[in-house]
């Protein structure tokens, strides 16, 4: 395998040495561009006390292209679809090479605390979020209890 770019080595070292509270990212031994990630649901959100598993991959042209990332744990959220794909501007058009794995994971954690039904990926969830926010939040809590707690 080709040598891992310095940028990725540095980012990985820092993620391990100086982890972000509530976020863990560990590279696979056999593929150092592929990370197992866990994110703790933010306090006072419907995802509180949930631990969500994600997977992250740094493509060949990272950091010119953003990391690819998705949820493996089922989650009820208007910006996350049934396959765990995430609608977040910094993962698409607003990506900049100045961003990092760390900042992206923080943005995803923030997205859990601030769902945005106006820019939906899961249309049925977004619809319900707009029509009956209280019920949608209750469903999100239920899913967190069912799928995201050990």
């Amino acid at each position, binding site marked *: 395998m080709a040598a891992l770019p310095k940028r990725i080595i540095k980012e990985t070292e820092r993620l391990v040495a100086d982890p972000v509270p509530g976020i863990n990212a560990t590279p696979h031994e056999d*593929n150092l*561009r*592929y990370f197992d990630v866990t994110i703790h649901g933010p306090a006072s959100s419907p995802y509180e006390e949930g631990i969500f598993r994600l*997977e992250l*991959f*740094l493509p060949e042209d990272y950091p010119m292209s953003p990391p*690819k990332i998705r949820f493996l744990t089922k989650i009820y959220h208007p910006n996350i679809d*049934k*396959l765990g*794909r995430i609608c977040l501007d910094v993962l698409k058009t607003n990506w900049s090479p100045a961003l990092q794995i760390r900042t992206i994971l923080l943005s995803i954690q923030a997205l859990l605390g601030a769902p945005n039904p106006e820019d939906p990926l899961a249309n049925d969830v977004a619809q319900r979020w707009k029509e009956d926010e209280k019920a949608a939040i209750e469903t999100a809590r239920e899913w967190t209890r069912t799928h995201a707690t050990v």
Partner: protein
Amino acid sequence: MAKVPRNFRLLEELEKGEKGLGADGCSYGLVDSDDVMMSNWNATILGPPHSVHENRIYSLKFHCGDSYPDQPPTVSFISRINLPCVNQYGNVDISKLQRVAQWNRDFTMEKILVALREFMAHPSNKKLPQPAEGTTY
């Protein structure tokens, strides 16, 4: 080159299939749209022109195991077909398909479908007698 992990590879194939950017005469998608592991896929092949298969639509299924794409998926026909690489249960022996016989992790489900469609149109296969249209395994 960066080695694209199984799940991200399957997401790429799904997006290509969903956008209908697939090769001529072939389509594919997930059996269950909420199957997070993306293991089971449906596909169709439109019978190649100038063959006994012309105007027929063949249904197939794929199973992508944990070691896909390092290992090829399993492929089988749902629609009955008489073809030398397909056994009596509909299972496809991809080692008999020249283009994909030497499996390589860059190959995709689409490439297998294209290879099958070519094989159906091959001079030695294009006139083989076929089971009644619409019958299944």
